[in-house]
């Protein structure tokens, strides 16, 4: 859907995006999923995974920030003086993180409270910076937006997977609704605690590696 949309848009904009959208999306969401493969950005990822809702909002923040900062870095890529490139990228990213944070504080106060410092920590998230540096400085704006959004979605999927596991088994609920009745299910509280996040992430990466039949290293 978004593939089609972006392509249609790109042809209107003089082929800024070309035919690479599909592969860009696939790369970001599946093939090079940022958390699994580059093990980037795990830090802020885990803290918000005790509830599915928090993980989804965090994922949305990542999609927004990565897409927007990619767009602007890409627009400025020919103008940007090389020496201050990194600082410019950080400034652009920080601007969008602040906008998202302000928006949360104004309209989703409780969510903003629960996410605490972790929205601000998107600034140091290696995925955002990594995409700006590796992709947006080399590619046209529309394609960069698609790349940023795709990477953000890839991140969101992993966060959601971890959060589903933790919330379902740790509290017996999903998105706050009771999924496993306490009548017959005793929630495993360890999963709600910090070690539970580490274990879940470890097992998830293990399973994915095994499914992909990894033999190297």
């Amino acid at each position, binding site marked *: 859907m978004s593939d089609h949309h972006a392509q249609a848009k790109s042809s209107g904009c003089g082929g800024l995006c070309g035919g690479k959208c599909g592969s860009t999306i696939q790369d970001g969401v599946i093939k090079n999923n940022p958390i699994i493969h580059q*093990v*980037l*950005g*795990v*830090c*802020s*990822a*885990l*803290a918000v995974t005790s509830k599915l809702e928090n993980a989804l909002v965090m994922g949305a923040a990542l999609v927004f920030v990565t897409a927007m900062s990619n767009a602007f870095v890409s627009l400025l890529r020919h103008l940007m003086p090389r020496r201050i490139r990194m*600082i410019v990228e*950080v*400034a652009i990213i*920080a*601007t969008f*993180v*602040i906008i998202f*944070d*302000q928006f949360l504080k104004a309209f989703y106060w409780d969510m903003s409270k629960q996410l*605490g*410092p972790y929205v*601000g*920590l998107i*600034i*140091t*998230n*290696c995925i955002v*910076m990594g995409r700006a540096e590796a992709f947006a400085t080399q590619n046209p704006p529309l394609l960069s937006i698609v790349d940023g959004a795709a990477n953000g979605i890839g991140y969101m999927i992993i966060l959601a997977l971890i959060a589903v596991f933790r919330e379902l088994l740790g509290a017996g609920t999903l998105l706050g609704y009771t999924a496993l009745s306490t009548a017959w299910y005793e929630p495993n509280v*360890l999963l709600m*605690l*910090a*070690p*539970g*996040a*580490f*274990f879940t*992430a*470890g*097992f998830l*990466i*293990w*399973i994915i*590696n*095994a499914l992909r039949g*990894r*033999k190297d*290293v």
Partner: protein
Amino acid sequence: MNPTSPMVILVASILTNNILLAGFLGMCSFLACSTKIETAVGLGTAVTFVMVCTTTLNYLLYHYVLVPLELEFLAFILFIAVIAGFVQLVEMVMERFSPKLYHALGIFLPLITVNCAILGAALFMVIRNYNGIQSAAFGLGGGLGFLLAIVLMAGLREKMGYSNVPAPLRGTAVLMLITGVIAMTFMGFAGMITMQ
């Protein structure tokens, strides 16, 4: 204002509220630089030093510049700029005056700018309403907590060099599981001290 005594904040942020094991901050460098104890000690020390200084500095700038000007929303940019600037400055001073120290710690300094634990400490300081002394104590405790966690991990990884880990578990997966066990151990300190 938060009434907790600085001493309690210091101990709590090392043990019960460890910035890495309970707050998930600084995971990237924790995973990347914990292969050898020597490297781990170097990075941990550098993080501790930078964290104490930048948390205090950020406290002063936030409460005496941003708050009076009602520009609190610029906090993220201010913190990241202070951290980057401070790290750069320390690197230059160190290279000029103490080449020996520079060789021991200097290589870690560029890594620290993007270490989320440093920025995280500044953000927590604001959220928890710490005063100046509490902020410094929190910075010190956070840094020492990171040092403790990364050195423990490095020690385990040095031993693990001889063990036969199943192929799909190698790398990040097994490190996550180990971190989980360490985090569980640290939870045993819960209730030993109380944050008031």
